[in-house]
C-alpha cells in the first residue's frame, strides 16, 4: 500500500470494503489485493468488526491537525527550476556568495512565502540532486599509506579535509555541473556552473576556504570533469597540496578511513580545546545517545568480568544494531569476542550472504552452529511444526553451541518491548547449568551495578538493548546508517499465501500445498527468522525512511509476522524458561 498518500477517510473506506468482501467469502489475499491493504490490516479490520460491529471498523483520526499543506510535485519542481536558474554561475568568476548552502536555500524558500523547516529544506536539496551523498562513500578498500600520511598531515597542520566531486545535473534539458565539497562531518558545500573551465575548480576551492575559514586539504578522485591540471593553479597560489586518488577505489567510507587513521594518531598530542576536529558536547543527551551509552556500558562490563563471552548474532536488525554498538564500545580495539550464529538451516538465502559479508567487513570472528542431530533427523518446520522445529534447531542448538565452546556469557538482542515476559527480564539474566531461566529467582539489578558473578558451569545471558523499542532501533539504524539485510526493503519476491500469512518460497525445500502457486509480489519483512515461519507484508517501502514511515503508520505489532509466538498463550515465557533466547 502506498501509505504516504493514504488519508484516514480513504483508509476507512478501504477497511469497510475489506470487511464486506470477507463477509462475501473472498480470500484474504484477494481482499488485500482488491482494497490495497496489507493482509494483517485486513485481518485487524475483520477482527474489529467481529468485536464491535461496523462501528469498530474505522480507525480514528490520530494526533493533531497538520501544520501546513504539503506542496504538490509540480510546485516543488517549479521551485527547483527557479532556484537553479537564479543560482547558477554562468561565465563570471565564482565566489563565496555563489555557494549553495542549506541556509541560503532555506532563506530563499522562506522568501517565497513558504513555511519550511530546515529538515525539509535539506530534503529538497537532496531530492533536487543539489546535496549528493559524499563520494567518500565510494572510496577504496584499505586506504594506502599515502592516504593515511596525507590525512595525518592535514590534521596535524589543522587543515580541513574536504572531499571534492563533480556531478552532472539537467537544467532545462541542458547538462550543468554541480561541484561539491564534502567535509568529514557531513557538511556539503556546492556550486552550480554552466560550464567547467580550467579556473573554476581553483575558484571553487577558494570560495570554500573563505566559507569555512580554514585552510583546506582537498581529496578527489580523477574524473574527466576534475582534471588534474585544473588543481595546479590552486596548489600554486596557496602553496597547499591536494590528494588525488586513483580511480577504482570502492566501498569504504571516508569516515571509516578517517577513524582508522585517527586510532593510529595518538602520538599527536597537539589537540587543543579549540581544535575544530573535536565534537562539541551536546547540551543534553538525546534518548538515542542515552540508550547507546547504556548499551556500551553493559557490553564493557561483560567483557571486563566474563571469561569467555560471545555475541549471539541472528542477522536481523536488532543484531545489526548490537554489532554496531559493539564496534563503538571497544573502539579503537576490535570487539573482543566472536559472533555466534545458531543456524537452523532454514534462514533466508539473503540472510546467509549478509551474515558472511558483514562479519568480514567489521572484523568479527564468526562461529556458525547447526544441530547436527536435528539435521540428521530431518527436522524442518514443515514436517515437525514450528514449535518442535524451534525447540530442536534453535533452543537445543543454542545450548549445544554454548556448551561446545564453553561460553560463560552470551549477548542477546532481545528487547523488553517485544513481548510481555521479556518486559520483566533483567539485563543480566542468569541461567542454571541446564540453561534454564528461573523468573522467580532473578537477581535484583540496581543502579548500573551489574552482578556478573557465577559458578562454574552456570552462564549469563546479557541483553544490552533491553531498553530499546522497535522505533528506537529503526531511528538508530537511520541515524547511524547501519547496514541491514535487504529483505527488510520491498522487492519482487515469490510468495504463497498460507494460513493468512504471506510466505516466501526462498528455495525448493518448501513443499507447496494443493492450489498453491508462488506469485511474484512486492513484499518486505518486518522481522526475520526461518523463512517458512516468517510472514511477509506487501509493501512498496524501498528506503529506510519508507520503512519507518510504514512502521509508524502500521496497525499491527512486529512479532505478528512470527508464527512461533502464535503457538500458545504465554508461549515466549515457556520457551525462555527452557532456554530459548
Amino acid at each position: 500500500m502506498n501509505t504516504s498518500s493514504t488519508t484516514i477517510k480513504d483508509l476507512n473506506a478501504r477497511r469497510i470494503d475489506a470487511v464486506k468482501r470477507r463477509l462475501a467469502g473472498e480470500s484474504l489475499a484477494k481482499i488485500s489485493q482488491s482494497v490495497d491493504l496489507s493482509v494483517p490490516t485486513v485481518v485487524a479490520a475483520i477482527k474489529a468488526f467481529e468485536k464491535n460491529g461496523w462501528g469498530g471498523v474505522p480507525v480514528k483520526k490520530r494526533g493533531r491537525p497538520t501544520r501546513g499543506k504539503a506542496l504538490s510535485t509540480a510546485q516543488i519542481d517549479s521551485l527547483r527550476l527557479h532556484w537553479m536558474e537564479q543560482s547558477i554561475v554562468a561565465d563570471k568568476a565564482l565566489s563565496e556568495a555563489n555557494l549553495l548552502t542549506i541556509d541560503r536555500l532555506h532563506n530563499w524558500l522562506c522568501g517565497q512565502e513558504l513555511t519550511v523547516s530546515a529538515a525539509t529544506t535539506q530534503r529538497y536539496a537532496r531530492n533536487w540532486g543539489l546535496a549528493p551523498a559524499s563520494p567518500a562513500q565510494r572510496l577504496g578498500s584499505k586506504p594506502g599509506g599515502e592516504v593515511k600520511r596525507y590525512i595525518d598531515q592535514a590534521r596535524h597542520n589543522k587543515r580541513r579535509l574536504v572531499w571534492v566531486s563533480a556531478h552532472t545535473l539537467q537544467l532545462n534539458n541542458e547538462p550543468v555541473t554541480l561541484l561539491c565539497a564534502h567535509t568529514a562531518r557531513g557538511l556539503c558545500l556546492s556550486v552550480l556552473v554552466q560550464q567547467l573551465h580550467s579556473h573554476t575548480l581553483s575558484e571553487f576551492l577558494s570560495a570554500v576556504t573563505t566559507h569555512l575559514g580554514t585552510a583546506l586539504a582537498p581529496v578527489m578522485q580523477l574524473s574527466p570533469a576534475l582534471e588534474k591540471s585544473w588543481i595546479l593553479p590552486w596548489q600554486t597560489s596557496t602553496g597547499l597540496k591536494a590528494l588525488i586518488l586513483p580511480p577504482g577505489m570502492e566501498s569504504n567510507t571516508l569516515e571509516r578511513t578517517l577513524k582508522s587513521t585517527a586510532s593510529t594518531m595518538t602520538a599527536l598530542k597537539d589537540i587543543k580545546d579549540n581544535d575544530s576536529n573535536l565534537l562539541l558536547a551536546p547540551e543534553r543527551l538525546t534518548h538515542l545517545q542515552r540508550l547507546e551509552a547504556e548499551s556500551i556500558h553493559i557490553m564493557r562490563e561483560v567483557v571486563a568480568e566474563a571469561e569467555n563471552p560471545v555475541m549471539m548474532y541472528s542477522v536481523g536488525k536488532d543484531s545489526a544494531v548490537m554489532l554496531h554498538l559493539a564496534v563503538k564500545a571497544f573502539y579503537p580495539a576490535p570487539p573482543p569476542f566472536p559472533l555466534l550464529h545458531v543456524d537452523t538451516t532454514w534462514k533466508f538465502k539473503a540472510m546467509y550472504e549478509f551474515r558472511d559479508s558483514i562479519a568480514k567487513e567489521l572484523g568479527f570472528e564468526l562461529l556458525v552452529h547447526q544441530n547436527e542431530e536435528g539435521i540428521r533427523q530431518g527436522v524442518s518446520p514443515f514436517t515437525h511444526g514450528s514449535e518442535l522445529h524451534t525447540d530442536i534447531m534453535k533452543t537445543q542448538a543454542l545450548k549445544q553451541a554454548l556448551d561446545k565452546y564453553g561460553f560463560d556469557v552470551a549477548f542477546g538482542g532481545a528487547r523488553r518491548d517485544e513481548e510481555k515476559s521479556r518486559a520483566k527480564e533483567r539485563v543480566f539474566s542468569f541461567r542454571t547449568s541446564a540453561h534454564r531461566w528461573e523468573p522467580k529467582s532473578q537477581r535484583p539489578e540496581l543502579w548500573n551495578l551489574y552482578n556478573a558473578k557465577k559458578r562454574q558451569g552456570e552462564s549469563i545471558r546479557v541483553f544490552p538493548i533491553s531498553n530499546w523499542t522497535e522505533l528506537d532501533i529503526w531511528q538508530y539504524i537511520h541515524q547511524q546508517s547501519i547496514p541491514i539485510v535487504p529483505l527488510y526493503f520491498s522487492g519482487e519476491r515469490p510468495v504463497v499465501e498460507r494460513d493468512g500469512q504471506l510466505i516466501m518460497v526462498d528455495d525448493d525445500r518448501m513443499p507447496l500445498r494443493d492450489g498453491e502457486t508462488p506469485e511474484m509480489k512486492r513484499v518486505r519483512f518486518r522481522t526475520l527468522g526461518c523463512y517458512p515461519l516468517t510472514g511477509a507484508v506487501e509493501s512498496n517501502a524501498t528506503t529506510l525512511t519508507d520503512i519507518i514511515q510504514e512502521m509508524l503508520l502500521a496497525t499491527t505489532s512486529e512479532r505478528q509476522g512470527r508464527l512461533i509466538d502464535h503457538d500458545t498463550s504465554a508461549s515466549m515465557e515457556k520457551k525462555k524458561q527452557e532456554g530459548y533466547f
Partner: protein
Amino acid sequence: MNQPNHDLIASDIDAYLNQHENKSLLRFITCGSVDDGKSTLIGRLLYESKVLFEDQLDAVASDSKKWGTQGKAMDFALLVDGLAAEREQGITIDVAYRFFATDHRKFIVADTPGHEQYTRNMVTGASTCDAAVILCDARQGVLTQTRRHSYLLSLLGIRNVVLAVNKMDLMKYDESVYEDIVEDYQAFAKEIGLNNVTAIPMSALAGDNILVRSDQMPWYHGPTLLSYLETAEVNDEHRKTAPFRMPVQWVNRPNLNFRGFAGTVASGSIKPGDTIRVQPSGKTSSIARIVTHDGDLAEAIPGQSITLTLNDEIDVSRGDVISTTDEPASTADQFETTLVWMHDEPMHSGRPYWLKIGTKTVSATITQIKHEVNVNTLEHTAAKQLELNAIGVCNISTDQPIAFDAFADNQETGSFILIDRVSNHTVGAGMLHFALRRSANIHMQATDVNKERRAELKGQKPAVVWFTGLSGAGKSTVANLVEKKLAAAGHHTYLLDGDNVRHGLNKDLGFTDADRVENIRRIGEVAGLMVDAGMIVLTAFISPFRSERALARSIVGEDEFIEVYVETPLAVAEERDPKGLYKKARRGELKNFTGIDSPYEAPENAEILVDTGTLSAEQAAERVVAEMRKRGLLES
C-alpha cells in the same frame, strides 16, 4: 506504532525523524499500595500515547474477558502484567519495564508491586529512575504502604516525585477529599525529606488529568501527569554540575601506541587538558584525548560512554575512579551506610561479602548494625541481623580503600551492591553516608620511591615480628635478643617496645579496653610505615585482643607479619613479676591489668610459639631467627 503525528509522518517523514531522533529520555517508577491502580495507569499512558497496536489491543480485549477485573471494559492492567503465574494470581510479582513516547520525550516506566515482601523489587526499580509517581487511592487516603514507598524513594534520592491521587471519579471529583489527602501526605513527606512533591488529582481509568486536563476538576490548576513528566529534570542533567567522576570499566590497549581508559561519565564534565587524579592510588595526570567511535570529543558530559587517554604513563586499572584534581572523591575503607537487605538468607555482621561500587569489587564485612529502620513507622530499633526487605544503618569495612562520594552528593559513586560469596546472589543494596574516623579527606599520595626500592637499598626483606604474651612473659627480653642477632647480621631493624611507646606516642592512652584497642591500632600503623620504609620491625606488646592483632596484621600485610606468641603460664609470669606490676594489681592498685582483671585472648594460629617456661631467652631468640630464615625473610 501509531504516533500522534500521523499526518506529519505521512507528509514529511524526514521532518518527523529529525524531531523524534532528538528527544530526551526520562525513566520513572510507579508505586503505591495494592489496587491503587498502578498497572491501569501505565496501561492508560500506553493507550493515550498510541503505542498499542490493534493486535495488542485485541489480545488485551480477549484477555480481559478471561482474567479482567473491570467487567466488560478493557482492563489496562493486563497490558503490563507479564508472567503467566502472576497473571493468573492477578498480581504483579516483579518489576516490569514499559516504554512509550510523546513528541518531547521517550519514557521508560518501571512498574513495581505494592506488597511488603517485594520491597526489594521497588528499590531495584527506583534505583535507575529520574522520577517517581506514587499512587494513592482517593477512597483510602495515605496508607502504610504509601508511606513505606515514599520513604524508599527518599532513601534512594529520587528528586522528582508525583503524588497521584487516583480514582477521583469514585469520590465524585471532590476537591476537599483531594486537599485532605495532600495535606496529610505533605506533612509526612517533609518528615522524611521529600521536599519536591507535586500532587495531581486524577482517574487513570477514566483518563482525567493524565494527558489532558479534566473537565471534572476545574478547581485543579496544576500540570497533568504527562506534562509534568515531559518537563521533569533528568538525573544526568542534574549531575552535570557535580565534580567529575568516571569509574574505569576497561583498559583499552589495542596496540602499543594506544592506552585508553573506557568508562561512563558518572558526573561532572571533562575536557582535554584537564588535570585528573586516579583514585584510590592518587596518581595524577592530564587528559590527552576523549576518544569515541564518532570522533574525539571537546568535552564529555554525564551519561556518555567514552575512552580517555592520558598524557602520562601511569598505572590505571579497572575499578579505579578518575576524578578532577580540584575536587577528588574521598577514599576510605570504613563507612557508615544505609543497607537494604534483599535476600531470604539474613545478613550477618562479620561475614565477608563482595561489595561492588562503580566498577570495583572488593571484599567487605558489616562491622556493626547501628540500628534497623522500621519502614512503616520509621522507628529505629536495635538489630543483630537484617532479614529480607529490612533496612538498617550499618558500618562496613572493606579490605582495601575505595574511592567514593556520599550518596547524598553523588548517587553514582555513593551506591553499592553486596554479593554473597557462595551463592553469588545480589543480597544487599547500600548507600554510603560517610567514612568512619578521619580518613575521608585524606588522599593517598603516590610516591616514586616505593617499598621494594627502599628494601632493595637495605638489602633485606621488610617484616614485622609481633611478640604477644602476658606481662612478664619475656617478650621484650626475647625481642631484644632477636634484634641483636639481626643487627649483627647487618640488618636494619627497629624494636617498638610497649613501655617505651607509652612514654611518647601513646602517652595519652590508658588501659581500658578501648584505649588498648587504640594503642595497638597505632602500633600497627607505625609498624606498617616502618615496613614501608624497608625495615624489619620487632614489637613487644601484651596486645591482648585477637581482633586488634588481626587488624595489625591486615595493616602490615599477611606475608610480612609474623606473630610470635611468648607463652608463659600466668603463675610463672606472676612469679617473675620483673616490674612489680602483678603485685600492684593484686593489691588493687592497678586496674585493668591483663591476666588479673582484664582478659588475654591467646593466639590461635601464631606463626611461632615459644614457651619461656621451658626455653631460655637465648633459645627462644634462636628459634625466632630460624623461623624467619625458613620463611625466606632472612638470607640463609
